[in-house]
Each structure stands twice: as C-alpha cells, then as structure tokens.
C-alpha cells in the first residue's frame, strides 16, 4: 500500500510506526451511575498510575526534562487538586468529568497569571489528558516515547509536541494534515528529519506497521516487501556516503560553477553552514533582530549583529535581505493597521517605504558593518513589484554606501518585467516560495491549497525562465533563494533556466551538490526545456526525471520505482 504526500528533503527512512494519539474530547457532564466513593477509587487509581508513568519517563529522560516531568507527576497527585476532584465527585459527577474540571480550573488560574505560570498551564493540560485517557482505557495523547527508534505518524505536530520529541529516536515523520510550510515541515527541514507531510491516507497506519518514508518521491510505503526495504536501505547508505563526501564548490559536470549558498536567519548558523560547504550566504533574513521588539533596534545594535555575521564569511558573498515585515510576520511598529489580505498588503519594501527611517537606519548599519569586515556584502529588497520601487531602493542604497544593491523577485510582476528591473538593480534573487504563492494565487500558509504551492508548476518555471533570460541579456546574476533550490532535481532545472547561484537550508547542500555534478550545462538546459513544456507540476517533475535519466551515466539518485 502506498500513500502520497509532500516529501520534505531527499531522505529515506524505514521503521516501525508509532502513532501520536489525538486529543481526547471533553468528557460529557452526566450524572455517574456509580457512587462517589467508587468514582473516587477510580480517580485515585488513575492519578497514581499516571504519576508513576511520569516519574519513570522523567528518570529515563534526565536533565531539564526530568524536572518538568517530575513536577507533572506531583501535579497528578497534588492534594489540593485531589480535594477539588473529591468535592466534584460528591456532586455526582463521573471520575472523568471531575478530573477534567478540576484540572481545567487550576489550568485557568495559572493561565490567568500569564508568563511562566501560563506555560505551566500546558503541563497541567497534558497531565489531565493522561489521567482521563487512563480512566477511559484509551492511549494517552501527546508525543510517544516507545524507547526504540520509530516513525512518528501524527495528524500534525504542534510546537509544544516537537519540543518534547526525542529527535534521536525519530527515524521519520508522517503527518496526515499539514502542508510543506507547516510547523512539522519547517522542523523537518531544520533538523534534516525525513518527512512526508499532508499524507491524508496515512490515517490508516497503525502502531507497529513497518513503513518506508520516501521524502524524495513524496511517498509512504506501508508493509514494504523485503526487496523494497533493501532498496531503501541502499539509498540511505548512498545518501550517507554523499553527506560524507568531500565538500567542493558547486559546479555542473562540465565545470560550470554554480555557487551554493546558505539561507540563514541569524548569525548562529553561520559556522555550521560553512562546515557543510556553503560558499557564502544567499539569503540572510534580518527579521530576527526586530521580532519581539516594540521599536526598531538602534543603528549601533544592528551594526554589532551584522558585523558578527559578516565576520563569519571573510572574502565570501553575503546577501542580506532588508526587513521583510508584514503578511505572516507583522511587526507592531511597521504594520499597525489590520488588513483584509495581508499577503497583498503593506509588506516588504512597501512597508519600509512607509517608514523610511527604519530602512535608512538598517542600510546605514549594514554599510558600516561591511566597512568593518572582509565579507562581500550584497543587499536586496523584498516584495518588489515595479521598476520605480527598484530605483527607489537602489538609489537609497547608493546614497547610504551600499556597494551592491538588488531585488527579490517574488511577484509575477517583477518576473515579467525583469528585463527592465535588471537594468536598474545589480542582481536579482528569486524567492520561489512567494513567487509560487502569488503566481498560483494560493496562500502558502493554508493547508487546503497546499497542492497548488508547488514550484515545479510550469507557470512558475516560465517566470523563472524570464528572469534568467533577462539576467543573461543584461549580464546580471540571478540567484534562487527559496525552498525550490533545495530540491536536487529542481535545482538542475533552475540552473537550466538561467539561475547563476542557489541558496538553501545548509542541510540540503550535499544532495544538491551531488545532483549538479551529474549534469552538464547542456543537460541542464535540456532538462529545463522538458519541464517547461509540461502542463502541470507533476508532469513537469516527471518530464525532468525522464530527461535527467538520459543525461547522467548513472540514473539520478531518486528514480521513481
């Protein structure tokens, strides 16, 4: 049995399924048919079992998790709570309902205290669910910990779940809901966990089933044959060998250089990126400096952060994107008015123009950091739609001492007039996530339209081709800095369409490097033409796979079985 979903990354995993039990419904408030003393016995027994379980889990986990779990164990048998439960039982409630209500009342009290106490409210919820589950004799919801490596199958994961997840034991993730931009997908990308998200039919998987999670082919295989398992294990070994291969600069088989750069969101990841062979930074997001802030940080503060990051890449290119606020990342001091359609609203360069002093300060801090370090700083503006906006931004950059000023191509408009835009801007960088969202008119954060959020769509590829062509004619670099660059085969297509550098999560570098090395420039252009000519995303991917198989001496690493 095979299930389709959206693969995150290029990995393969094999292992036993452990399902994450779903949250329990609220116990019905009906009179108990048992007497209160009997209900109290039931409640006390379940509270004691859960406290024991939590103690055991704590001892196993150790460290900070042990303190949290032991505190939870104490909550389960807390005398104040038990008194409250007993009082509710005296009113004729069932043990399930009394436990639920008692925990909920303490929970509300803690939540109302806010801050640290508010966070403990979630711990109480978790204990409450465990006790009610034990009373009902159903599996406890929450992140499982079976004590052996497993493939986690869940409806979707909440941030709190992933924080508790022991990543050392997770071979792979399969979610039933959730798209490529869900929290699970982001976590999987960040931590290089093999994942297939949005596999609706995976709801039929049961604990203990053996599955192959094949992210490269967007597949989950239930009860695979020994041959399929052997093949998967071979691919796992091949991939491990690729990851261990010496790090070389990105290049096609004929030696054409294609610099491979890293997407970073703070200075912290710089060292790891360099270790994995990033030849620079293709997208440095600066939002982290501004999130959680009520006012923009000062020039001096910003300059210190930029200097720290640029120092990690002496002699290397670092492309910094100025503040991209609005839509899914609103900032109180930039986006003050609520909007009906924030993705189409005052965001990116539009918001910065509205508050020009913030942009001026950021560019001033960047220019100063550039002067103080050896890195090759490029700066770009997000959400450019017109030549006029391009001119506004590049003029301001020149005035404030930025040497290389470019734009992001995220709107179909910018792609369609890239020839004009690249006469003004020094370079373009295509943000494929937003370009896909705007081209397909499909909200990238909405699971229900996630099937349209696919950069393989020829509508998106045609726009990329236009930008590539404009870059070639005007002699300007055209980079890619969206998730599309992290897909090894799509990366080849993008280069064939005229991309001159690729920027991605550092964890994707090894696979993309290996894939580029299998094709010449001529191959890449031929594969790109095959994809462009297709009528849809799936057809484009298939056409590219077939074209790619013809060019390389060995088939590309991830053939469709």
């Amino acid at each position, binding site marked *: 049995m095979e299930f389709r979903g959206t693969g995150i990354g290029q990995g393969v995993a094999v292992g036993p399924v452990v399902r994450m039990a779903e949250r329990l419904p609220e116990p019905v408030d009906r009179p108990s048919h048992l007497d209160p003393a009997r209900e109290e016995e039931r409640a006390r027994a379940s509270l004691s079992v859960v406290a024991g379980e939590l103690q055991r889990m704590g001892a196993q986990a150790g460290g900070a998790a042990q303190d949290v779990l032991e505190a939870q164990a104490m909550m389960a048998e*807390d005398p104040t709570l038990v008194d409250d439960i007993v009082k509710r039982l005296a009113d004729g409630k069932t043990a399930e309902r009394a436990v639920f209500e008692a925990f909920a009342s303490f929970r509300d009290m*803690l939540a109302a205290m806010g801050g640290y106490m508010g966070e*403990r409210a979630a711990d109480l919820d978790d204990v409450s669910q465990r006790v009610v589950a034990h009373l009902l004799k159903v599996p406890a919801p929450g992140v499982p910990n079976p004590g052996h490596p497993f493939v986690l199958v869940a409806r979707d994961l909440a941030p709190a779940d992933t924080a508790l997840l022991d990543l050392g034991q997770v071979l792979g993730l399969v979610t039933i809901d959730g798209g490529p931009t869900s929290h699970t997908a982001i976590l999987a990308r960040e931590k290089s966990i093999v994942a297939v998200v949005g596999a609706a039919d995976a709801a039929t998987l049961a604990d203990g089933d053996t599955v192959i999670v094949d992210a490269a082919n967007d597949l989950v295989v239930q009860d695979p044959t020994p041959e399929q398992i052997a093949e998967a294990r071979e691919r796992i070994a091949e991939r491990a060998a690729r990851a261990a291969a010496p790090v070389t600069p990105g290049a096609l088989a004929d030696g054409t250089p294609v610099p491979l750069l890293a997407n970073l969101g703070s200075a912290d990841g710089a060292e790891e990126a360099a270790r994995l062979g990033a030849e620079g930074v293709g997208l440095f997001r600066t939002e982290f400096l501004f999130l959680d802030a009520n006012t923009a940080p000062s020039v001096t503060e910003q300059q210190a952060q930029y200097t720290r990051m640029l120092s990690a890449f002496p002699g290397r290119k670092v492309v910094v994107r100025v503040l991209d606020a609005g839509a899914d990342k609103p900032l109180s001091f930039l986006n003050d008015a609520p909007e009906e359609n924030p993705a189409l609203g005052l965001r990116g360069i539009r918001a910065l123009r509205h508050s020009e002093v913030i942009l001026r300060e950021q560019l001033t801090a960047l220019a100063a950091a550039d002067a103080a370090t050896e890195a090759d700083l490029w700066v770009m503006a997000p959400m450019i739609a017109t030549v006029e906006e391009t001119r506004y931004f590049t003029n301001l950059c020149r005035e404030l001492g930025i040497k290389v000023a470019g734009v992001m191509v995220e709107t179909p408009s910018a792609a369609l007039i890239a020839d004009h835009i690249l006469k003004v801007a020094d370079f373009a960088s295509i943000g494929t996530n937003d370009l896909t969202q705007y081209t397909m008119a499909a909200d990238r954060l909405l699971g229900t339209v996630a099937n349209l959020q696919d950069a393989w769509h020829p509508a998106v590829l045609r726009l990329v081709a236009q930008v590539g062509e404009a870059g070639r004619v005007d002699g300007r670099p055209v980079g890619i800095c969206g998730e599309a660059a992290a897909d090894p085969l799509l990366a080849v297509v993008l280069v064939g369409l005229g991309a001159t550098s690729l920027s991605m999560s550092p964890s994707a570098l090894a696979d993309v490097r290996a894939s580029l090395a299998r094709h010449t420039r001529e191959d890449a252009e031929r594969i790109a033409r095959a994809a462009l000519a297709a009528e849809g995303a799936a057809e484009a991917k298939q056409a590219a796979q077939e074209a790619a198989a013809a060019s390389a001496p060995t088939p590309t690493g991830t053939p469709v079985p």
Partner: protein
Amino acid sequence: MVERTVRVGSSHGLHARPAKLFTQAAASSGSTVTIAKAGGTPVNAASILAVIAQGIDHGDEVTVAVDGGDEQRVLDELVELLSTDHDE
C-alpha cells in the same frame, strides 16, 4: 507548631524546579507544613499547585509553619531550601 519567616533566594522565585524541590521536601517530611506570602493565607506546602499559584518571586518574604513530627529539624531544612538559589 513552629514557624519562621524567610526571604526566597531562588532567582526565579518559587516556580518550576525550586517549587518542586520544596513541595517534595514538605510532602516527605512527615509533618503538616504550610507556606504563606506576607499577608496571605497559608496553603498546604505539599501541594505544588497551591505553592506555584501563590506566585512567589525572588526576594518575597514567606512564612513557613511546621506542625507535628520533628518540627524544628523539618523547619530548618525547609528554610534552608527556600533561602538557597536553585536557579544558578
């Protein structure tokens, strides 16, 4: 019954780990122990929920009362616990 008033030494107050350590000690002491914030009603010190619900912060004055068992020794131990910083 013996009681003493002490300033809380934990830099994050009586939350999380310090609260857990204190309630564990109170629960296993064999005595009946209460804790009260200055001007507040005493609550069962063996109840982690009651203790954290007091919202006791670093530097707050709390009164610990111990009844029954080895009162003086239990009080000394609990006061010692409360005045130590467990969040280093």
